């Protein structure tokens, strides 16, 4: 397992107004797995991702990435761990507008003090896979949203992270750009041992995953694993979404109608 989380809880607010965002959540992510996290708004998807990705601390529980208990990491150690082991993609791309595409992509490597030759090799690797070779000297403002998200993905992948965390990566993209990005992610996931943990509310996006955890009211509600075609998996996701909302085949069968 590349990631193990046990009994995670997250409580926000003060004594008088407590909000339980997560309650006793445990999960595992295998090496090279493509895990999706889905659920209705306010279910706790992003909170879970933030805790798993070291951006937030759980109120209780533990998260292990590889053989490292990340709750023990602080300051420079945590920054170094993030820099070397983890990759992030956000809905808002979070590119540095003042830097060119090339500078944005190699920035994490410069923090790692990677030798120039290796920087060039890594840059060439990710830009070829994500089809960004022609855009290296452009600024983010000159790119389409799809291209920007690919640059963000390239920046996350250039350090060869063990796990890539993606929070609604297709949220700002049109359907064509979203499909393109997801195909790239799927390709990278299959060609390397990198695990991907992706939060999404979109069934089509989730259908690219190998396994999906459904969260409701801060707890794991259900889990589905892809076995056959993506179309079949998509149908099951749709049904589970409807089930969480009170409808769907499962509820219909249980109620006998």
């Amino acid at each position: 397992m590349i990631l193990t989380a046990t009994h995670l809880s997250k409580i926000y607010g003060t004594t008088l107004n407590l909000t339980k965002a997560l309650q006793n959540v445990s999960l595992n992510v295998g090496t090279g797995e493509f895990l999706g996290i889905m659920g209705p708004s306010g279910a706790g998807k992003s909170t879970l991702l933030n805790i798993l990705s070291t951006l937030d601390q759980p109120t209780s529980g533990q998260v292990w990435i590889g053989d490292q208990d990340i709750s023990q990491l602080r300051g420079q150690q945590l920054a170094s761990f993030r820099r070397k082991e983890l990759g992030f993609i956000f809905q808002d791309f979070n590119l540095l507008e003042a830097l060119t595409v090339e500078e944005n992509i190699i920035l994490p490597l410069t923090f790692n003090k990677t030798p120039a030759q290796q920087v060039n090799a890594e840059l060439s690797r990710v830009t070829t896979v994500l089809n960004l070779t022609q855009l290296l000297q452009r600024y983010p403002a000159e790119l389409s949203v799809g291209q920007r998200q690919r640059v963000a993905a390239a920046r996350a992948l250039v350090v060869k992270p063990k796990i890539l965390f993606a929070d609604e990566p297709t949220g700002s993209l049109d359907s064509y750009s979203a499909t393109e990005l997801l195909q790239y992610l799927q390709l990278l996931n299959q060609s390397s041992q990198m695990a991907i943990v992706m939060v999404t509310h979109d069934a089509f996006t989730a259908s690219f995953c190998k396994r999906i955890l459904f969260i409701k009211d801060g707890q794991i509600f259900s889990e589905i694993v892809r076995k056959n075609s993506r179309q079949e998996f998509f149908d099951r996701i749709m049904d589970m979404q409807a089930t969480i909302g009170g409808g769907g085949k499962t509820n219909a069968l249980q109620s006998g109608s």
Partner: protein
Amino acid sequence: MLYNLAVKNFKRYRVIHGIQISIGALAVMIMFDFSLMGADAKLMQVIGNTILSRSFLFLFTLVVAGLLILFSTYWNRLLMRQRYQEIGQLALMGMPTLKILLAFAIEFLLSQIIALGIGLCLGLLFYKLLVMILLKVSYVNFAIGFYFNWRALLPVILLIPILQVILFLNNLITIKRLSLLRLLKPKRPNVPEILPLWQLQLLSLLVLGLLLGGAQGFVNLFSVDDFLAQQLNISLVAGLCLAILLLSIAWILGLMGLWRIVIPTVILCLRRFKKLYFIQQRIFTISEISRWSFRNVKSLTGITLLLGLAFTFLGMGALVSRYGLNTIDNYTPYSLLATANKQVEIDQILKRDKVVAQVQPIFQTKILPVNYNLDTVVGHNYRSNADPSMVMTQATYNRFARYRGLKTLKLKPNQAGIIMPVTSILKAASKKDIAAQKPVVQVGTYAQLKLQITSITN
């Protein structure tokens, strides 16, 4: 890498840095000129005891430096808020906080160095002009040339590291206070609730009226304080304080309204003209200004408040020091205006009237200001705390007289005039007694603040 990142960010945020550079350069120019004036020994010999003393110039320098620090801190905060996500992203990629702060510090240093350079050049260029204006309004004839002094440069240059340390600490506290999640959270535009356009236009007119009213009120401060004192049946001092308070409130509310109502309304009106609205252009166009000002309306209001307060207090200070003292009991100045060549004659008059005068050094001007204490005029039977430090030139007096609807002075080269304002201090005294002791001065009453002017001719 840090330097490259800072330079690239500096270019990227050139508009915001440009505004900071402009204001910084202006402040540096003023600071440098005040500092030069204080260091100019010849100039201080002429104006040091009468118009602006060294300590006053030093105080002005400190005030300008303080305002620049306040403005830069606030502007830096605004810029940082714009860039929380960028800071969060750098931190997420593993850049140490200190390095992030250093990159920002280099960026601010660049704009401060440019502002310092421009400000110093402007200071040197405009020093002569500024001093000439000062001497002109003071009716002092003094040949002034270009002047430079290393000692004057020092406080201005010292300001940069002080400012850097303040901004660095401020940014450090800000970043340490915020979690990585908060930094990464996208900034949503703070769009105020939009009222119907006609209501906004009406409100804008009211705000502009308030600003105009405030400005006009400050110009006619004496009339306002008189009016308030009469209407509310309070003393003139209380009337003056109340007037300043009310006008300050009007001015500050007006400035707030300017950002929150008038400018958004103007932008909304301009938006109707599509030709002015180039949304895809990269230059700073209406659409960008619109989005930027809506997004930062609170910060801009804060800056306006700060500047508004600063200007209000500076203006009030100038007014109070120049004219206000005339209306405040216990601090009434007594001046005698005369041409320089009338000094002997004036001395004789003062001697005859048993007036002990403190004669100021002779100016190279038409006006010879002579101040004397009221105690010496009316004798020891009467109490007075009148401050004799105020110098009233003919021009100042005439300006004051016009506001008051009094007779103005037109002194010819061979004429002199005595101005004797009468205050409530004299109310207890018998007019006849005073008149007997001081025959050339008639006594009026404080409420009307009548000024008796006696012209002395050859």
